[in-house]
C-alpha cells in the first residue's frame, strides 16, 4: 500500500504574526517555518504504519504545493522518515487551487491512502483534504483520530458528537485527520537527517487551475485586555460577564 501525506509549510506557532504590504500578506522576515502540526502527526501515523511489517504499507510519500523556499520543510519530513517527496512548484492563492494541484499529482502517481491534516495553522481552512477527494471522486472520511490496518484493510476511527465510530471505506480514499491520529510527533533520527539529503524530491510544474477565493487583507485582533477584576464579595458579577460579555456560558 502507498500512503501520501500532504504537508503544508507554516510559521512556527510562537511566531509573532506581523503583516506587510498594507496588511495584505504576512511579513516573512525572521519566521521559522515548520511542517503544519496536524500534518506532522499525520506523517507520524503513516510512518508508524509503515514500520509495522504486518500493515502492508510499503511507502510513505509527502506532497507539498509551494515554492523552492519550502525545501527545508520537505527535507525535514524526509528526515523524519518519508521515503520520497513531491513538490508542485506553485504559490497557490487558495485551498481550491492547492487541492487541484495535488489531485493531479495523485492521479499521475496513484496512492491507496491520502492523508491530510484537518486544518493548517496559518489559514485554518479545513478545506484541502475534502476538496482533493471530490476532485478525484473518491471517498473521504473526516475528523479521523485513528487509522490502523487490520488484515490489509484500513480501519479508521472517526470522531462524532459525544463519541467515536470505527469506519471502513474502500481504497483509495482521503483521510482528513485531526489530533489523536498519533500520540506525539516523531523527531528525525540522525540517520534520517543524513539520508534526507539524498532522498528524491520530484518536481511538478502546476497545471492550470482557478482560484475561487482571495484574501483581501488581514487584521490584527484587538490587544488582549488586561485582566478585569471582579469584587470577591460579588462573584455573581463574574457569571454575568461570562454570559453576556464573553458569551462563553
Amino acid at each position, binding site marked *: 500500500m502507498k500512503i501520501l501525506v500532504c504537508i503544508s509549510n507554516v510559521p512556527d506557532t510562537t511566531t509573532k504574526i506581523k503583516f506587510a504590504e498594507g496588511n495584505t500578506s504576512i511579513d516573512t522576515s525572521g519566521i521559522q517555518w515548520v511542517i503544519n502540526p496536524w500534518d506532522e502527526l499525520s506523517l507520524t501515523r503513516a510512518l508508524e504504519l509503515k514500520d509495522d511489517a504486518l500493515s502492508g504499507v510499503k511507502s510513505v510519500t509527502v506532497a507539498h504545493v509551494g515554492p523552492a523556499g519550502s525545501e527545508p520543510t520537505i527535507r525535514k519530513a524526509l528526515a523524519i522518515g518519508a521515503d520520497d517527496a513531491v513538490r508542485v512548484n506553485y504559490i497557490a492563492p487558495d485551498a*481550491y487551487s492547492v487541492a487541484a494541484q495535488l489531485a493531479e499529482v495523485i492521479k499521475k502517481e496513484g496512492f491507496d491512502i491520502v492523508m491530510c491534516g484537518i486544518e493548517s495553522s496559518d489559514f485554518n481552512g479545513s478545506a484541502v483534504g475534502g476538496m482533493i477527494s471530490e476532485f478525484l471522486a473518491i471517498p473521504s472520511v473526516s475528523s479521523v483520530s485513528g487509522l490502523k490496518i487490520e488484515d490489509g484493510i484500513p480501519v479508521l476511527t472517526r470522531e462524532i458528537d459525544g463519541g*467515536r465510530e470505527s469506519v471502513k*471505506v474502500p481504497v483509495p480514499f482521503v483521510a482528513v485527520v485531526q489530533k489523536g491520529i498519533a500520540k506525539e510527533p516523531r523527531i528525525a533520527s540522525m540517520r534520517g537527517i543524513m539520508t534526507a539529503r539524498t532522498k528524491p524530491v520530484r518536481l511538478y510544474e502546476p497545471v492550470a487551475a482557478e482560484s475561487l477565493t482571495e484574501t483581501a487583507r488581514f487584521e490584527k485582533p484587538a490587544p488582549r485586555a488586561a485582566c478585569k477584576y471582579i469584587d470577591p464579595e460579588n462573584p455573581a458579577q*463574574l*457569571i454575568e*460577564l461570562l454570559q453576556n460579555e464573553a458569551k462563553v*456560558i
Partner: protein
Amino acid sequence: MSVLVYTENWDGKFKKLSYELVSYASSVAEMLNMKVIALTIGKADDDELRILGNYGAARIINLVSDRLTVLDNQAYAKVIADYAQKEGSKVIVFSNNMTGKALAPRLSVRLKAGIGSGVSKLPLNLDPFTVYKRAYSGNAFAHVIIRSDIKILTLAQNSFEIIEKPTGAVPETAGIDVDGIPVNTTVTETRKQTGKILLTDADIVVSGGRGMKSPDNWAPLVELASLLNGATACSRPVSDEGWRPHEEHTGQTGKIIAPNLYMAFGISGATQHLAGISSSRFIVAINSDKDAPIFKAAQYGIIGDAMKVLPKLVDAVKKKI
C-alpha cells in the same frame, strides 16, 4: 435563488448550534433578499423540524433514505449539491463543526463554489462578497473575498446569536433517489461517551490548584463544572498529591487544552501550567495572591479566597440556568 442551510440532526433532534446556524443563514438571506431553505438528511422529528421555522427558515426540507443512515461524505455532498442546484441556491451555509468540515469542501469542488471557512460575522460586503474569518490560529483575522457564483460559508461555533423570526414554515419530507450515488462508508462500531465530559473535548473547564488547600474542598468545584456542563482539571501538584486523578492534570507535562473558558481556582499560573492552557479563549483566575502570574494571562480575575468565592459562584450559576 435561495440561501441553503444544512442543519444536521442528531437522532432526529436539533441543537442550539442548529438555531444559531439558521439565524445566521436568515440574516445573510436578508442581506441578499433571498429566502432560507433549511435542509436536513436523516429522519427528524416533526416538532423538531418546525422549530427551525422560528429562526427564519422559509422552507424546511427533510430528505430521507434508508441507504443514508450514517455520514458518508461523498454521498451526502452529492445529495446536498444536487438539491442546491435544483433550488438555485447561491449561498450554502454549514456549521464549522465536524460535519461541516467534512461536507463543505466536497461541495466546493462539486459546485465550483468558494468557501469562507469558520466565518464569525455576517459578510462584510456583498460586492465583492467578503467574509471575516479567524486566521493564524487566532493571531489574526482575514477578510476573504469569494469570487465564485455560488458561495459556501461555514459558521464558527459560538459566534452568532439566535434571532427569533417565526415563519410558520411546514416541514417537507422527501425521499432521495440514491441510484448513482456512491455510498461506501461502513460504520462497524460506535462508542458513545457516557457520563463524564472528556477534558480535551470540553468547552468549559473548571480547574483547581494548591490554593484549594485540601482535596476535601473540591465538591463545589465539581458542582460548578457540572452546572456549566464542563470538565474538571487540576494543576500538577494537585495530581501529584493524589487529590485528583492523574488525567485531570493540565500543563506542560500533562494535558494541553484550549477550551472556550478555563476557570482556575487557587492556581498560581507557573510557566509549566500556563503552557497547557494559554490557548484557552477566556481564562478566569481566582487566587488570593494578587501577584500570581496567572492574572497576567487571565481576562477576568478575582483576588480572593477560592474557598469563599466558589460557593457564591455556584449559587450565581444556579440562578442563571
